[in-house]
């Protein structure tokens, strides 16, 4: 499990950095979120 926790923490940090600094990632996240939010609200 310890390795899994390390992997999760690394993935979360990598995700945050990608959203903050890689062009287009924030828009992709928002677009995907919009799809699920729209479905949930209907």
């Amino acid at each position, binding site marked *: *499990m310890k390795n*899994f*926790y390390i992997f*999760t923490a690394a*993935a*979360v940090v990598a*995700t*945050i950095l990608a*959203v*903050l600094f890689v062009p287009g990632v*924030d*828009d992709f*996240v*928002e*677009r995907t*979120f*919009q799809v699920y*939010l729209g479905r*949930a*609200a*209907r």
Partner: protein
Amino acid sequence: MKLFRRVVIVIFCLLLIPIAAVATAGAKQRFEDGPNRVFSGGPLVAGELHSGPDPDWSFVSEVPTIEMQLLSPAQSRRIWIAEHENKIYVWSGYMGNPIGRIWKRWPVQAERDGRAVIRINGVRYERQLKRIQSGDLLDGLTATITEKYPSATTRAAVEAGDVWVFEAAPRS
């Protein structure tokens, strides 16, 4: 039992990744000049501030979305707009739905303090949002809305409170 606990932990940990992505993207947008899609943006800063009499608003029928910022709180979002009898209107659906009410907080905020700034084609306009809950005006307005957008907005939905409609009137 131990296996079940581990499965729950694994699912929780994997869910943290998309949650972190959404939270980060939402927080990042708050520092931007305007919104992007669903996440609120910061105050509308760029663009000429319109002064003088209102323009002929018929041009908004060609505008798919606008950016709108309330003064309190100073956050902006992207919304649909309709023009009817040379007045402009914004609205929010899903207001009869609990998830929609969590998602769409601006209508409640606008009813409390309707001062707003809208940005259309790079020009900012100071407006006062006035909620319209009933009246014959809604027949023509909802017809305009459904003609422009894939929307099921009806007078009945507005009067039932499922859709909140605001006139974006000049700020006096």
